[in-house]
């Protein structure tokens, strides 16, 4: 079963994302800050990581950089979520190696399709 890890500090968004991803038949787990993401990744690796940019403690870009420069983690497909919606953020994400990029507020379909694409590779 496809495993999805969500890193997002807004509880309401975690709830909605969990609901729509589970409905697709995927296994969903969630963490609420940057350090917790790396902690989680010490164990089994998810098939897709949904990563918010504005995370407490360590921000999303920081985490993304760590993942993409770590040989063990680099293969994990990462979907970045950002609320600022600025072109600058998209460029930063691409440079750091993000695999997909979604701006809040997103449509549920957009998120699901992106994850499907990432998981199917």
């Amino acid at each position, binding site marked *: 079963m496809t495993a999805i890890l969500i890193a997002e500090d807004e509880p309401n968004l975690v709830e*909605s994302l969990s609901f*729509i991803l589970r409905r697709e038949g995927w296994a969903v787990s969630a963490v*609420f800050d940057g350090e917790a993401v790396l902690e989680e990744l010490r164990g089994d690796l998810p098939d897709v990581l949904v990563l918010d940019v504005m995370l407490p403690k360590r921000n999303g870009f920081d985490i993304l950089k760590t993942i993409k420069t770590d040989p063990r983690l680099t293969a994990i497909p990462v979907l970045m979520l950002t*609320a*600022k919606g600025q072109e600058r953020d998209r460029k930063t994400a691409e440079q750091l190696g993000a695999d997909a990029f979604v701006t809040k507020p*997103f*449509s549920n379909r957009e998120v699901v399709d992106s994850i499907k694409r990432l998981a199917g590779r």
Partner: protein
Amino acid sequence: MLSANVVLFTALAYVALLFLVAFVSDRRARHGWLGLVRSPVVYTLSISVYCTSWTFYGAVGSAARNGLEFATIYLGPTLVFVGWWFLLRKLVRIGRVHRASSIADLISSRYGKSTSLAVLVTIIAVIGTTPYIALQLKAVTTSFQVVASTTHTDLLGIAESDLDLRTGFWVAAGMAVFTILFGTRNIDANEHHHGVVAAIALEALVKLFALIAVGLYVVFAIGGGIGEVFALPTSDRVLGSEVFGARWVALTFLSATAIICLPRQFQITVVENADEEHLRTAGWLFPLYLFLTCLFTLPIAIIGLATMPPGANPDMFVLTLPMLNGQGALSLLVFIGGFSSATSMVIVASIALSIMVSNHIVMPIALRLPWLAPGVSGDVKSLLLTSRRISIVLILSLGFVYFLFSARSDALASIGLIAFAGVAQFLPCILGGLYWHSASKAGAFAGLLAGFVVWAYTLLLPSFEGGGALPASLFSEGPWGLGLLRPQALFGAEGMDPLVHALFWSLSLNAGLFVLISLVKEQNPLERLQSTLFVDVFRNPADRESRFLHRSAAIDDLFVLAQRVLGAERAYRLFRESARRQGLEEGLPRPSAEFIAQLEREFAGSIGAASARVMISQVVTGETISLDEMMRLVDETQQVIEYSQQLEQKSQQLQMTARQLREANDRLKQLDAQKDDFLSQVSHEVRTPMASIRSFSEILLEARDLEGEQAARFLSIIHDETLRLTRLLDEILDLSHLERGEVAWSLDLVDPERVLDRAVETCRGMAASAGARLTIGTRAGGARVMAHEDRLNQVFINLISNAIKHNSSRRPVITLSSGLVDGRYEVVVQDNGGGVPAAARERIFTKFSRAWTQSRPREGGAGLGLAISRAIARKMQGELELLPDGPAGVGARFRLSLPLAAAAEQPERRAGE
């Protein structure tokens, strides 16, 4: 007693020697052997052309008649050479740079290369010099008759009526021949008359030697020593006369002026100057020469008066003293010395005048008469030489005529002074031209003309008195019986010395008109340019002219013109050199503006600045237009020089303004970046709740099969997020209002303790649900502050709720206390959390600074709360601060302080609401 033949033979032999010296020097100079000829000593000796027969014979005569007055004639030039050397240096520099061929040329060139001015100066110079030349003829004639006299009566001095006019004629003719032979060999004044200068220098030595020899003889052989001479009774007569009056000052001034303004002095000092450095030597050597010249004047006068029979002419003492004592050889030497003084003056003066007449009178006429200008190579040159030769003859003839009419009326010295006063009219326009930018042609012309007319009327005319040509009533009663116009008592100025009188009226009128008209009348562009080039000669090289006058011409035309003026050979040489300097291997040079300016200067050296300009203008195009341009440039340049300091100041001001602008710009950029940052934060804060709302509403729209309970939960989330959004927008607007200060609050007299209690009650529910405990510490009683009650409540709630929400303790405890300190009411809200990290302390009062908190936002705080609270506090003249970290176990401590209300304020403020 010497026979006339011996004297004549000696004089002719002496002239032959002068010819030889002049001829050899000219030859050597042409072959480039200039060594001795161009030495500073020769230059200085030639300046002594100032000392004519007037000083040679007349100084003793003057001393015998008027005592020390004779010294003024030496004092003036000494003062100029010692004290005014800077004026001479400027004259010499300008003369060399602008190739001035005469004093008329210099004045004309300074005032816009004016032909009319040159003509006027030439006429004044000729008329002013004529008495002077006559004076020399008279001196030579008299001395010849004395030295060749056969009777004892003649020895006492020739009576005026017995003057042999034929001798005078032959002297004049002989000088004309000599001058023509050596003064008109070439036409470029700047090629210098080396032969003449060498001959003049030799004559200077001869006259000095003769004076010293006769002086020594008279003092020691006749007088028996210096002491004995001044013990003679006549010494009191000579030294006793009162001389230090207006006439003394006027004479000193006149002789100082003469050394600058006399055409022959200009010729020698400026035109014949080969090296500016020579002036340095002349600065001390010439005064020394003058001193030696007058060394024996007083003793000779004293002994002459003592030993000569009564009725002897004191002007001839120098000659008659040795003769009476039977010293034939010494007498002959003295005669030759006097002859030298006279001839050197006549030769140089007639050369200078002939140059002026040919350049400023003949040339301009020739240029206007087409049939006189056939355009043959060298024709201008030959025209000039011919006209110069004729001029010399005419000038000497004029001198001879004056000699005929006036010779029997006056002593030597007074004729000399008439000439001095005549040329002194040049002084205002020369000084003005050298040092005053605004001096204009019209001013110079009017001043010169007026001064000249007054001089001629008050001084020259009376010198003919008694000659029979003029009615005596003119002098005693004035023309047509008008007493006010009597030549020697103008406008009722009676009782003045005639010389002082003439000098006063002529120079006052001259200088007055010169200054007045210069101030009133605008200069034309060329005058402006020349005035800058002259006055600022040490700053402006002459070739700057080419930068202002953008002229062009066909090079062939220029070459033809140059051949006409300079002669074929010199023109070819000049053009070849210029072509080489322009880097051309062969052929003619390019007719650049610079080259045309150079050519004009070359021409000016030959035919004077005014005529040179007219000739060049015949073949040149494009001049008038560029004159305006030149004007602008000259003005600009001058302003740049004069106002450079102001410019520097302005540039400093500009730099300062630029720095201020840069700083303002930096501040604006910073503000702009803050605004961008704020917008980006707002966007983030809005998008987050929007994301939840959109996501849940999509779920609800798509999935109709949701359980009722779940659907209700999703709807309530949407509802909460909507409220959160509303709160956020309210806060942003609220802060914006507070920051812009648009809201005018009416502050009321408020009991802050009551407001604090209300806030605590409001927060109890929130504290309970968070498991936090609110405790009340010490409280202030009876405080009154001026505040907006609801806003104050808002601040308290914000502080308490922050303490609850951001508390990391497992058992959150919030303590509230209040007190009165230094006339202020203070509330401290303290928690037992982890405190604010040091890095975030400065940031927490800025917008959206929630990042410091470790907990997740739950109750929708957008990070604006503290920023709003502080803005509110400041609106009420209060302050909201984060206190420094307290002891362990104590978390963050926020303090709000407000000023206590003054009692008097209470009722009025209430009424204001």
